[in-house]
Structures are given as structure tokens and as C-alpha cells.
């Protein structure tokens, strides 16, 4: 199908509702000319159109500038479904439920860390389980695993992982209250029981960074960011447990759509009405998996602090924020002139609340929510802040750089050893749980994160606060 795209302004493009029969809303792409040219022939545009066909979708089927081909929903996709007649779809959350990122901030200057960086990185590599099939820091079975699924990061803190003050710096205070462990299958629990406190593999990582550039001095100061200081970023999710929850409900809901007569253009878009038993069951299981993910990141963050304290006794490693980029949340929004409840699906997209938003934790009520945007391991990551302009997309923004090159193409261009050598030439040390992943995750496989972030700032979705450059990376 030839997809006609109408440019609305330098960073917004429209896919008209008339593009395909069944579309209920238009598609809205956040993209400048370069980003649009990169995705012009990609299946991601058809996925934006397919999502626009789902019942109850409101406004637009959105795609952030880091968009790329996902399963059913595009990666970088945002879609809000009205609580009246709308649906929830596991494909709109993805397999790695509550995959997300957190940033810890130190007072240490890069110069203080550099001399011990190789041994610090080795110590972290030993302390933090990572790579294919990695087992976690703690085994939790039966009712103890249910307590994790109900308690999220709060469970982690109560069990010795981190500090109570961390919780106010985690989205939803580290726990989604609608979580229902009963809806999480025994198979999902079996996959997750030994994985709590592990990075896993794929694009997950732990990175030591330096604050390279400050864009907004006032916000950076409020966030505790100072040029030259060292930070630690952790990117991971709900491991096998989340994947199994998604797989279980894709199968369950594929029967529901047939029974309920819901027409979907792609079977990965199976869904259920928000007020149906199946829809509520998925939301309960998804929230439980999200709690597992938040507990997972909290446990890893706590272990990172322990390792840092061995090298730099007494130096704190404060948590700036922990935020998910794969979730469906029922939220109150004022949209198109009226207030309502919407199930906002963000798949490879981050919630970004502006200053004064009632859902912000008190510590960020004046600044807006910190948004953590991981880049590729050879380039940079960003700290953004939520901005009022994001109201048009249900307070959402991008989640990372987004891939442009396939894993096999990346491996053809550079093997793991070459990637490692190239990074070390730039002063970036690397350890990897799986060498093959290192080659596949080469910086060249990703979009230009600077461009992605530039687009969301120009669109008014978020504000640039600081740019972070990697100095050491552990790849899962």
C-alpha cells in the first residue's frame, strides 16, 4: 500500500484517516525530514495505521521519532483508548512489560573515577548478573514471588535492596496497585522466579557515564546534575516473567477477539474491552509484571551502590528517577475539551508529565518529571523533563535512539571485537555477558539519538536538560 503522508510542520506528519478502511483516527508521526526518510519504507508506518483501527482509540495513533518495526504496535507507539468502548492490547505494551530505565547520580568527577574504572567495571560485571539465561540476585518462589508482584520496588526496599527514599523517585512510587498475582500464570512465575536482580540480554545494559553537557542550568541543578560528574544508568525489564505474561494473554485474547467480533488487521493486535473480564485480567497480570520489573531495577540499583561504596566509601549514589517505557496505564486526561479516563499504551515510549501535573511526586512537582532517554553505547543518553506540549499525545515522549540496522547487518559491518576496540578507542570500556550481542548492539545500528531528542523538544513534548556520555558499559 502506498502510504500518503502529509507534513503538518517541521516535526509532525499526518497519515490521514482515509488511508485504509477501518481507521478510526489519523496517524501522527513525530519526525523531521531525515527521520521520515529513514522509516518511509519501513513496516512501522503500516503498524501505525493498524493501531488506528482498534476500538475506542482517541485522537491519533502516535509514533515517536525513535519509531521502528515492532510486534503489532510499533516501537515508539502511543495509543490512548477511552474507558468507554476502548480496549487494552498486550501488543501495545510488548513482551518486556515495564522495560525501563533508571539513572543514579554521584558527586564524583570523572577524573576521580577514571583511575579505578577498569576494576570498578569488573566488580560491577561480577556483582550484577547479566547475559543470556542469567540468574538473578535472589530466588523468590510461591507466596514470596507473589509478594514481589504485589509490592514492586517497595518489596525490594523492605527486603534490603535500597532505601525508602528511593520510592518517591520511581514512577508510581515503584508499585502499581492494581497488580493481581493470581492472573500471572504458573509458567510465567516459573520463568521469573530465579531472575529477580538480573539485567538479562539483548539491548539491556548498565552504563557508567559522565554529564557531558547541560542544556537547562536551572532544571539540571534541581535534578542534581552537574557537568563532568559521574552517573550510572540501568536499562532492563521484567525478564522471562513479563514475556510469558504477554505470550499467555496473546493466546487467551486471540479467542476473545473472535468471540467478541473485534476486527483486527494483525493478530499481534489482539485486545479485549477494558471493562471485560479478559481485559481486567490482563491489566492485573501486566501490572504484576511491571512490579516485578521495578523490583528488578531496584535490586540492581542497590547492588550498584554497594559496589560503588567499596571504591568510594561514603559517596552517595542518589536515584534521579526510574521510569518505564513499556506499559498501559489507565489515566485521567483532559482531551479534546473534555475530561475522561483513558488506557494509554506506551510501547517504546515514555510517560512525560509537565510541571504541576497532579500525578507527579512532590519532589518533581515544580520541575516536571525527569525523562531518561538511553542512547546507543557509543554515543550519548539524555535527561529530559516533561513539558506541557505533550498534552497532545497524552503526556508521552520518546524512549531511546531506536534501531535502523538489523542485527545481522550490524554484525556484518563490525564484529564484537571490533566494536569493543572501537569503543575503547573512544575511552569507553566494555564488558559483555554475550559477545554476539555486543556486535549486534553496535552504535551504528541505532538512529542518531541527538536527532530523536531534538524532534521531541521542537515538538514541545519535553525539554532537554543534560546529555550524558558513556565511559564504561556492561552489555547484557
Amino acid at each position, binding site marked *: 500500500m502506498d502510504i500518503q503522508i502529509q507534513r503538518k510542520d517541521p516535526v509532525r506528519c499526518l497519515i490521514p484517516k482515509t488511508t485504509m478502511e477501518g481507521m478510526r483516527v489519523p496517524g501522527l508521526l513525530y519526525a523531521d525530514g531525515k527521520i521520515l526518510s529513514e522509516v518511509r519504507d519501513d513496516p512501522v508506518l503500516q503498524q501505525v495505521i493498524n493501531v488506528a483501527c482498534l476500538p475506542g482509540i482517541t485522537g491519533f495513533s502516535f509514533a515517536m521519532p525513535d519509531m*521502528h*518495526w515492532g510486534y503489532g504496535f510499533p516501537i515508539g507507539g502511543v495509543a490512548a483508548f477511552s474507558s468507554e468502548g476502548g480496549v487494552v492490547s498486550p501488543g501495545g505494551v510488548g513482551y518486556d512489560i515495564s522495560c525501563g530505565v533508571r539513572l543514579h547520580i554521584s558527586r564524583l568527577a570523572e577524573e576521580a573515577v577514571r583511575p579505578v574504572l577498569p576494576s570498578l567495571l569488573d566488580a560491577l560485571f561480577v556483582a550484577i548478573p547479566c547475559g*543470556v*539465561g542469567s540468574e538473578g540476585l535472589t530466588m523468590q518462589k510461591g507466596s514470596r514471588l507473589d509478594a514481589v508482584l504485589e509490592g514492586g520496588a517497595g518489596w525490594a526496599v523492605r527486603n534490603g535492596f535500597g532505601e525508602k527514599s528511593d520510592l518517591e523517585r520511581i514512577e508510581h512510587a515503584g508499585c502499581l496497585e492494581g497488580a493481581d498475582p493470581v492472573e500471572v500464570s504458573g*509458567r510465567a512465575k516459573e520463568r521469573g522466579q530465579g531472575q529477580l536482580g538480573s539485567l538479562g540480554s539483548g539491548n539491556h545494559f548498565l552504563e557508567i557515564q559522565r554529564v557531558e553537557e547541560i542544556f537547562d542550568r536551572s532544571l539540571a541543578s534541581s535534578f542534581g546534575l552537574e557537568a563532568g560528574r559521574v552517573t550510572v544508568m540501568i536499562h532492563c525489564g521484567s525478564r522471562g516473567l513479563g514475556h510469558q505474561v504477554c505470550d499467555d494473554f496473546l493466546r487467551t485474547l*486471540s479467542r476473545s477477539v473472535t468471540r467478541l467480533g473485534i476486527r483486527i488487521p*494483525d493478530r499481534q493486535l489482539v485486545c479485549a474491552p477494558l471493562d471485560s473480564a479478559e481485559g481486567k485480567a490482563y491489566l492485573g497480570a501486566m501490572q504484576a509484571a511491571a512490579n516485578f520489573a521495578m523490583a528488578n531495577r531496584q535490586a540492581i540499583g542497590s547492588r550498584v551502590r554497594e559496589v560503588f561504596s567499596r571504591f568510594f566509601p561514603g559517596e552517595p549514589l542518589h536515584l534521579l528517577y526510574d521510569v518505564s517505557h513499556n506499559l498501559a496505564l489507565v489515566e485521567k486526561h483532559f482531551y479534546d475539551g473534555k475530561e475522561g479516563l483513558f488506557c494509554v499504551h506506551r510501547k517504546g515510549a515514555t510517560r512525560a508529565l509537565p510541571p504541576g501535573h497532579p500525578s507527579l511526586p512532590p519532589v518533581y512537582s515544580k520541575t516536571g518529571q525527569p525523562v531518561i532517554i538511553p542512547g546507543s553505547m557509543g554515543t550519548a543518553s539524555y535527561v529530559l523533563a516533561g513539558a506541557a506540549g505533550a498534552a497532545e499525545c497524552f503526556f508521552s515522549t520518546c524512549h531511546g535512539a531506536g534501531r535502523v540496522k538489523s542485527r545481522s547487518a550490524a554484525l556484518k559491518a563490525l564484529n564484537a571485537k571490533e566494536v569493543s576496540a572501537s569503543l575503547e578507542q573512544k575511552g569507553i570500556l566494555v564488558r559483555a555477558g554475550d559477545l554476539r550481542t555486543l556486535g549486534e548492539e553496535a552504535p551504528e545500528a541505532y538512529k542518531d539519538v541527538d536527532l530523536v531528542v531534538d524532534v521531541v523538544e521542537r515538538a514541545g513534548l519535553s525539554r532537554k536538560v543534560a546529555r550524558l556520555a558513556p565511559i564504561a558499559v556492561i552489555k547484557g
Partner: protein
Amino acid sequence: MPWRKLDHPADVRIEVEAETLEDLFRECADAFYSVSLGTWSAEHSIGHSPGVFSLQGSGDDLAGLLVTWMNELLFELETSRRVFVPLEVRIDEGLNLLAIGEWVLTPAAGGRVKAVTYGGLSFDLGPPLRLEVIMDV
């Protein structure tokens, strides 16, 4: 051509071809383990035993049954470190599957595939039978 990788920006997309349905299921298993475990082969096993694998009414159609089959192999690999080598596969009209083969215990704790997905799933009855499927890694 039993199976090959196709282009995909983030994950692993494969195309599998076979003359018979039974061969297609065997090829899917082979593709899954190759992607998941890389250079692993049965020679690296730390134990093996005869085994039977059955799926009762697990798929809405043949493509769904294939995805279910691969996800079941994934589950066993991740939770029990077991590879199932299918020697004979039987599928009846009710989409019930019975596979007879061998369980092989691997030293690897799980593999790199995290899910076999319905995204981009296509199935052509051929001949030859042809499946396209994407694995999340």
C-alpha cells in the same frame, strides 16, 4: 532451503520451508535452537533421554500451533535447560500435536530468544510449506 534469516531492525525474522508439515515443525525447532543457542549442538549435551512432547488444542490454526510449539520449546529451555530433538511429529485435524524424540540436557541456562511472536507471522500452504516468524531477542 530449510530455514534462513530475513532482515529485521531489532529482532530475528526467519523464513522456514519444508515439503511436509512434520518437516516444517522439525525445521522450526532447529531454527529456534540455532538462533537461541548459537553454535550449540547435541554433542555438547550433558545428558539425554527419550521423550514425548504433546500439545492439545493449543493453536487456533496451523500458524498459531507453530508459534505455540516454538514457545513451548523456549519454556523448556529456559526453565529446565532441556532441548527437545523431534524425530517424529504427528498432527491431527483437531490441531493436536504429538512429537516423539529426545530430550537433551544443555549446559546453557536458557537461550537468547525471549519469545516467539505473532508479529509478521505468515503461513503459506505451498507447496512447499512456508512460514515467516519473528523471534524477540
